[in-house]
């Protein structure tokens, strides 16, 4: 795993641990919701891939985090980024409220 993957896994596990007191089911939902709310799409995609990592010592994700990521996968992948921006059409009259 790359350093970033390790960090994301660590973050997911840490979030899960802080919700763990709610019990596994609820904690998994809370963790999924937290990741959906605060993580950037690439981070979400990476953590979804991390679910399938088979480290020698088993999944790097703890149980709650694993269930949370499964839940995220159920909800569907985040929106991809578009290539190359056109910087909107705001320089056309009427499209910006600026000023």
């Amino acid at each position: 795993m790359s350093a970033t993957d390790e960090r994301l896994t660590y973050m997911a596990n840490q979030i899960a641990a802080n919700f763990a007191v709610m019990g596994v089911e609820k904690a998994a939902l809370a963790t999924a919701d937290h990741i959906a709310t605060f993580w950037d799409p690439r981070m979400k995609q990476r953590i979804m891939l991390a679910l399938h990592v088979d480290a020698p010592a088993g999944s790097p994700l703890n149980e709650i985090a694993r269930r949370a990521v499964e839940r995220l996968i159920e909800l569907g992948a985040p929106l991809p980024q578009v290539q190359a921006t056109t910087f909107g059409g705001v320089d056309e009259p009427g499209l910006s409220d600026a000023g």
Partner: protein
Amino acid sequence: MAWIGEIDLGTKPARAATQTMVSLSIDGHAIEVPEGTSVMRAAALMGTTIPKLCATDTLEAFGSCRLCLVEIDGRPGYPASCTTPVTPGMVVRTQTDRLKQLRRGVMELYISDHPLDCLTCPANGDCELQDQAGAVGLREVRYGYEGKNHLKVEKDSSNPYFDFDPTKCIVCSRCVRACDEIQGTFALTVDDRGFASAIVPSQKQDFLSSECVSCGACVQACPTSALQEKKVAEIGTPDRAVVTTCAYCGVGCAFRAEMRGEELVRMVPWKEGKANRGHSCVKGRFAWGYAQHRDRILSPMIRESVDQPWREVSWEEAIARTASEFQRIQAKYGTRSVGGITSSRCTNEETYLVQKMVRQGFGNNNVDTCARVCHSPTGYGLKTTFGTSAGTQDFDSVRQSDVILVIGANPTDGHPVFGSRMKQRLREGAKLIVIDPRRVDLVRTPHIVADHHLPLRPGTNVAVLTAMAHVVVTEKLYDEAYIRARCDWDEFMDWADFVAQPERSPEATETLTRVPADELRATARLYATGGRAAIYYGLGVTEHSQGSSTVMAIANLAMATGNVGIEGAGVNPLRGQNNVQGSCDMGSFPHEYPGYRHVADDATRQLFETAWGVDLDPEPGLRINNMLDAATEGEFKALFIQGEDILQSDPNTTHVAAGLAAMECVVVQDLFLNETANYAHIFLPGSTFLEKDGTFTNAERRVQRVRKVMEPKNGYADWEVVQLVARALGLGWTYTHPSEIMDEIAALTPTFARVSYGALEEHGSLQWPATDAAPAGTPTMHIDAFVRGKGHFVVTDYIPTDEKTGPRFPLLLTTGRILSHYNVGAQTRRTDNVAWHPEDRLEIHPVDAEDRGVRDGDWVALRSRAGDTTLRALLTDRVAPGVVYTTFHHPATQANVITTDYSDWATSCPEYKVTAVQVSPSNGPSDWQERYQAHAARSRRIERLGEPAE
């Protein structure tokens, strides 16, 4: 000294809780004033000034100079009007032949021991003694100067900002009273008596080496030139004043910038300022010299790569380059490959524009702010529990507090003016609880001793607060009626069950937290039952792996005891930088728009899409630390950084440096070539708070005006620079004044609906929410109901940080700041404030020092798992054995080389307050420091237009 253009009513307003009015007659005119008003103030209110020297309306009346005598029917003698309260039907005469004669006699005595060098005195024209000599019609001094006098006493010029010239002192004791009553430092005394009496700092020391903290209250109170700003002596008296807001800390003191032409002469705290009520600290009042410092960069600069020298270019070239680089990089690597960082030092309007540029122009949500590394857990925790990402009170609220609980904050250093307010209340008898690993000054300061100080082990905040909750619940000290009415009772019960478990009791957690159980129980009882209890907290709460949990644990305690929604109580984050609150309000976080509304919320997003005329990304963007991670992986390529020095202020410097080095375009907009700029490709010079219009929002949600007092030395205010970049990116922005930006913010943000520059003129300042329902703002929040509806109890389980001590790293390092410096010190290091704190020191307990053979002042190496640095040791028992402490104001120390990547679970706010370290004797800078110094020197070379590289 008298404030130009401001009226001094002589004594403070009546304190009377009842507003009973009293009628009396002064010089034949009838007047009605509140009960408790002095005769002097009553006269001043009707426009009659009674001569005075020892009285001023910021201090308690003292009655020593006898210049303010009046005649009152039915009273013998000539009472002093400053110490005589009005009574119904009183008949007062302020000007009679006898009074004139008496006053002249008093004045004559003063002047006979005063140098008559008025024409060359720095206070000429701005001296109350001179004014009063005129007012009493003094024409001759019969006593001559042959007798004993004080005219040869030496001047004390030790303080870098003001002089004390005892020859001009009239021993009115205004300075002494200012230091005691306003500042609360008690540094000055009147030594000796009668003719020999003199003002002396501490134990007859000079000002610099005394306990004086250089707040300047005494200088402001002094009616003569005895205490005088050096700048006034150097430049001359000011001739105009502009009201503006301090750009240092989250207290948000209002100042009158007193000017002569384009030159700033002095900053005088504004009496009408609702955050500071006429007081200031050394930073705001004196430390503004950085604005003119020779290190300031005034021309835009670019370079191809960071190993090249900088090349000065025109604004046009720098702006065009910025836009084309971001466009090129996005075209090559994708929309989400770039981002921006907003600054808590800049105005609301500037911050708003940077996030707008990112969302509207870059087309993503990759915007973050330095609040990430300080108060992001406050936003998360208070929004979750109460429904609003902000503190609940105004600063005035502390006047009503019966119990003040300070946790993880050091207000006398970090938020000095509020610290002084708090001390005033404590001297009046409020109880004090301090929860902090270090014995901060507040624990024991003149006339104040904390009722409880819990020196907990760093990293155990949640365990301590849960143990307090355990006591509140198991001893039934909670406020059931309040909880039933205001919170969700079932959630409360879940929480109560959790905290009541025996393993969360003070006794069970004592070995972990190192807080004696009986002390903790007494603390909890005092907080729950001592009356109106207010919690004030700082970064010692938020900068932990459980920062958000700690904020929520605090909120739980406040709700359980009915301490939210009333004056004198509440949960109050003390914000670090001047505009932390504002930068968060303005949508600087990657997941929310201005007003804390999530980017995935369709209705809000559509509102902004309509206003800005573009489709907006519904996915949250990257946080600073994740941007840097993505950069090291080659996925994040360009960053626009306004007014931030992430290399110095963010944790794990080596990681930040690697992230920045991996980017293709780093743009830094700042006053100085800061440490981050060593990795930048484009430098856009910034403007200071003196050079622009805008608003800051302080820790009490107070939006205050920043007003331009001089033209930007770099040519543009920061908001103009962002607008130039945005226009080069094709965004058709046409703001002509920051007020138009605020109008746009107000139109798009419900809590700012009634904020406008017009409304700010009218009200002086506004605490948001300022809405149609509360057009004058909201001093206390959650009065009848929580913003989210029912207050939400959150079960916060203590989870120890993974940063653990062990044989290699047996000590815990925690970090903080000192009064005279601000954050990474970029500004204060460029002022005379270095007189107080020339370097960062490592505080270490004498026992730990002795174990390591370290003596006071020795160089020591400080090592953690992340890195190592060196600095000098300061032996003190302020820190407990096992704990060491340092500040991070100086780049040479690079304290953040030591701090790790661990962070708050909910917000990624770094865990600055807990790092396992080892300390050992050392004889010089670490390898990293040497390498870094060499790199910094290399990357700061500048080729000026028409000159070779420096």
